[in-house]
C-alpha cells in the first residue's frame, strides 16, 4: 500500500488503481488497525475520503466541545490531495529526518483536526486514536507537537508565523543532503500578518530556496472577523511577487480537481530558482452549509443538534473512527 521512496532524481510516484468500490480497505500492522485509503489518482476517491475526513473533524471537535472546525473543513481537500496524491511519503517507515521523502509542515497549527484525520487515514497512526483528540494524555494535542512522538508531525505549531522558516531550514537540509524532494507548508491568510512570515519570505527568495511550495489558505476570515476588516493585507499576489516568489493560484480550493492539478502544476515550478507560493481560495467551513460564509466557526464546536445536521450532509465513505 505504501510508497517506497524512490532514488534521488527519480520520477514522482504514480498510484495503482484500487478496485475497491467503497474506496477503503482495512490493514493491520504493528501500529494497529486502521482504514487505508487507496492511493489512486481518481478524483472521486479523493472526494470520498474528503467527506470522511470532514466527518472526522466534526466528530473530533464535537466530542471535546473545542477545537477549530472552520479552517479544518476549508483545507480538507488540500490535505487529502496532498497526502493522497501529491506527496512522496512513507507512513510505515516514519522517521523525523524524512530523507528521500517530501515533507509537510502545518504552520497554522490550530487546524489540527484535519491534519490528524488525514495522517491517520494515510496510515501514520491508528484511526481509532482520533477519539483521543484534545483529551488528557493524548498524542493529539490541541495544537500539533512532536513532544509525544506522534508519527507524521515534525514541528510544533500553534503560535503562528513560524512554519515557513522551519520549512526553509528543512528545504536547505535537503539541498545539503542531495535529497531531491520537496517541502510543503500550509499557512492561514490571517497568519501571514505575523512579521516572521515576511522575514522568511525575503530569505527564501534571496537564497533561491526552490524546493519549497507554500500554500496560503485564503479564506478571508480570522477569529475577530473578515481579514479585510481586521487587518487588510492588500494584494497578496503583488506582495509575494515583489518578494521574489513564483505566485500560483488555486481559484477554488474546495474543488478536488483544481487542488490536485494546482499542486501538480506547482511541482513543475520547483527547482527553477524561486520559492513557490500558492494562493488557494477556500471557504471556511466548506462542506457544511450552515458553517460556510462566516468566521463564526473558526474556533467553535457544533452542539449535538448541529453535529447531526452537519453529518447528514457528509456521507460516511470509509467508516467512522
Amino acid at each position, binding site marked *: 500500500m505504501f510508497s517506497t521512496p524512490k532514488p534521488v532524481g527519480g520520477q514522482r510516484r504514480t498510484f495503482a488503481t484500487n478496485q475497491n468500490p467503497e474506496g477503503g480497505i482495512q490493514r493491520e500492522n504493528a501500529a494497529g488497525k486502521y482504514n487505508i485509503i487507496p492511493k489512486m489518482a481518481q478524483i472521486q476517491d479523493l472526494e470520498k475520503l474528503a467527506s470522511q475526513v470532514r466527518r472526522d473533524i466534526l466528530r473530533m471537535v464535537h466530542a471535546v466541545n473545542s477545537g477549530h472546525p472552520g479552517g479544518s473543513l476549508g483545507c480538507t481537500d488540500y490535505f487529502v490531495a496532498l497526502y493522497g496524491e501529491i506527496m512522496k511519503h512513507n507512513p510505515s517507515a516514519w522517521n*523525523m*529526518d*524524512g*530523507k528521500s521523502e517530501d*515533507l509537510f*509542515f502545518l504552520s497554522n497549527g490550530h487546524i489540527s483536526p484535519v491534519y490528524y484525520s488525514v495522517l491517520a487515514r494515510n496510515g501514520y497512526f491508528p484511526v481509532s486514536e482520533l477519539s483521543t483528540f484534545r483529551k488528557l494524555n493524548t498524542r493529539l494535542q490541541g495544537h500539533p*507537537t*512532536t*513532544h509525544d512522538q506522534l508519527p507524521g508531525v*515534525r*514541528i*510544533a*505549531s*500553534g*503560535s503562528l*508565523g*513560524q*512554519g*515557513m*522558516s*522551519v*520549512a*526553509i*531550514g*528543512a*528545504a*536547505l*537540509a*535537503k539541498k*545539503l*543532503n542531495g*535529497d531531491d524532494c520537496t517541502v510543503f507548508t500550509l499557512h492561514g491568510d490571517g497568519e501571514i500578518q505575523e*512579521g*516572521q512570515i515576511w*522575514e*522568511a519570505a*525575503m*530569505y527564501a527568495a534571496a*537564497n533561491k530556496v526552490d524546493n519549497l511550495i507554500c500554500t496560503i489558505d485564503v479564506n478571508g476570515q480570522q477569529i475577530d472577523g473578515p481579514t479585510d476588516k481586521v487587518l487588510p493585507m492588500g494584494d497578496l499576489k503583488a506582495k509575494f511577487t515583489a518578494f521574489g516568489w513564483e505566485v500560483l493560484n488555486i481559484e477554488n480550493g474546495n474543488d478536488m480537481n483544481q487542488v490536485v492539478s494546482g499542486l501538480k502544476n506547482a511541482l513543475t515550478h520547483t527547482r527553477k530558482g524561486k520559492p513557490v507560493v500558492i494562493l488557494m481560495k477556500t471557504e471556511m467551513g466548506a462542506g457544511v452549509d450552515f458553517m460556510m460564509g462566516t468566521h463564526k466557526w473558526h474556533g467553535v464546536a457544533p452542539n449535538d443538534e448541529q453535529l447531526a445536521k452537519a453529518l447528514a450532509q457528509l456521507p460516511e465513505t470509509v467508516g467512522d473512527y
Partner: protein
Amino acid sequence: MEKKYVPKEKKDTRSGFGAGLHELGKSNPNVVALCADLTGSLKMDAFQKDFPERFYQVGIAEANMIGVAAGLTIGGKIPFTGTFANFSTGRVYDQIRQSVAYSDKNVKICASHAGLTLGEDGATHQILEDIGLMKMLPGMTVINPCDYNQTKAATLAIAEHHGPVYLRFGRPSVPNFTPADQKFEIGKGIVLEQGTDVSIFCTGHLVWKALEAWEILKEKGISAEIINIHTIKPLDTACVLSSVRKTKCAVSAEEHNRLGGLGESIAGTLTAEFPAPLEMVAVNDSFGESGTPDELMTKYGLDTRNIVEAAMKAVSRKG
C-alpha cells in the same frame, strides 16, 4: 604566595566560540552555522570562509534564523546560531520556545555580548535576563563558560550533546586560565580551589574575579572554596550540596540579574536540601547603561571586592 592560576594571556570568550566552531567545521560535516548580520562580532568569519556551503547569513531577521535552524535539524544537521545574547533570547523567545525547545530540536543557540561587559552600547544590548529566560524552558541546557579555552571546549562539547543548548559568552578580553586540553563536561561543576569556610559558586566572567577574591579572603584568614558552575542548567546539585555541607554557607557570582540567575538556582537547591546562608553577587533587578566594562562592573556591584564582602557576610551569618 605561589599563584595556582597564572593566565598567560587575556582573550575574549567569543573568540573561543569562533575557534571551536571552526574546528567543528573540520571535524563534523553535520555542523552548520547561521548568523544574523553579526558574523565578525561572533567570530564566525573563519567558519564562513572555510565552509561557505554550510554557513547561512540570514540578515537582521533573528526570528527567521531560529526557525530555519529548527528546520535544518530535520535532515540531521546540527545548527549553531549566532547573534548577541539579547537578540538570541528575548527577541526570539517564542520561536525558541515552540520551534526549538518544545519541538526538541538539536539547535545550539550561541550568544555573545551577554551582560554588562559589552559596555558602551548600553542597556538596549546588555541583556541581564537571558539565563533566566533560557533556564525556564523545559529541556534547555544553559552554559556560561568563563574564558577562551573553556568557551572553545564548550562549543565542541555541545555538538556532541543531543538537544537544545544556550551557550552564553561575551565581548571583553578576560584572563585565559583554564587548561587548553581540559575536556568540557556539561553539567559538572569544577572545583578550582578547595576551602572550608565558604563556597563561592561563580559563572562566566565572574569566575576569574572569584579567584582574585580567594586570595584576598585567604589573607583575611577565610578559606573559600571556588567552584566554576559553567553549566547553569542542569545544575550540578551534587557538587553544590557537597561543598555547602562542608562550608555551611555560600556565595553566588554572575553577570546577570539576581532574579532568574545562577544564584536563584542555587538558592532553590539549598532551600530544598540543605538550608544555609547564601549571598548573591549579581545585578540588583536593574537595566545597565553605557560605560566601560570595568566601570559598569564596579557600579553594578560585580567586582572582586563585592565577592569578598559577600563571602565575609555569608560567613558571619552562619549559626
